[in-house]
């Protein structure tokens, strides 16, 4: 498993001071996860690249609004999520409004991801990911890509914490079902 350096030392203060090298390091750190997140939501390569670019430029412009330097990652993903939401609003609202009807789970393990997927399950994982409703997919991606906390995911997606818990719970359960199904089949 790749280590997601949650508490890694990012050169955010230097970027705030306008140092190009700091911005380069920050963007290099987040460019691929950000692209993956956006792509898995919009399923359009060019649109995803556009959103990433817009996100980077917005980050440069609004770095002053970032209060906690340690939250740079979630702040950046939040910008990208807003950009995606703007595109959804332009295109269609149907998928946006397709919310899962589920209650918040009683117990929820918000720990590091223990999910491991076999090579033969990878295609199934991607297929299932794409079958998930958009809000669940967004939450699952944020959880797996950057291991964001539930609070951070709630901030990024601008949804209540309980809703995030519910979405992640159902998405994870669906994934486990798939894995178990494949394991039993083999």
């Amino acid at each position, binding site marked *: 498993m790749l280590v997601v350096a949650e508490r890694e030392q990012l050169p955010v203060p230097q970027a705030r001071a306008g140092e190009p090298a700091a911005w380069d390091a920050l*963007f290099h750190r987040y460019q*691929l996860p950000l692209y993956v997140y956006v792509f898995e939501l919009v399923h359009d390569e060019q649109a995803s690249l556009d959103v990433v670019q817009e996100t980077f430029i917005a980050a440069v412009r609004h770095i002053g609004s970032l209060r906690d330097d340690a939250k740079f990652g979630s702040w950046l993903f939040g910008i990208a999520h807003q950009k995606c939401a703007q595109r959804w609003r332009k295109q269609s609202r149907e998928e946006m409004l397709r919310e899962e009807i589920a209650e918040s789970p009683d117990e929820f393990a918000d720990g590091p991801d223990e999910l491991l*997927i076999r090579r033969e399950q990878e295609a199934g994982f991607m297929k299932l990911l794409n079958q998930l409703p958009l809000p669940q997919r967004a939450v699952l991606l944020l959880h797996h890509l950057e291991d964001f906390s539930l609070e951070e995911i709630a901030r990024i997606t601008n949804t209540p914490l309980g809703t995030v818990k519910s979405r992640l719970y159902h998405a994870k359960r669906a994934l486990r079902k798939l894995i178990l199904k494949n394991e039993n089949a083999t």
Partner: protein
Amino acid sequence: MKTPREILLERHQAAESKLDAIRQSAVAAACDRRKANSPTVIDRRYNWREFLFSLRWHFAALSAVWLVIAFLGLTAAHSPSLTAAVPAQKIPSAQIIMASLRENRRQLLELIQPADAHETGPVRLLVPQPRSQRRYETLTA
């Protein structure tokens, strides 16, 4: 065995080159922004110009006011009403002026000289008199 993160990142590894280009353009934008935020001498000069330009209507209004004031001043200086402010009839003649002057001098002498001096006879004043006055006196004597 792979984590979902690894699967997702590997799946989109091909986009890395395009993302590098995007990153470079974003960093260039950051550089431009940094330059824009540090004002140079040219910028400051431009700011002064811009500042003065923004006040152009104020300057125009002030200029107009000063022009009006100057015009009014000129017209007032050449106005005949001021020169004719004192009517000609009220200017006393030279004889009257001289008479009043003499009267004034007499009163002054009375004040300056003691009372017994009047009895000894008139004392000539040592105060130099204007030439016109002297001529007038010789004529009247």
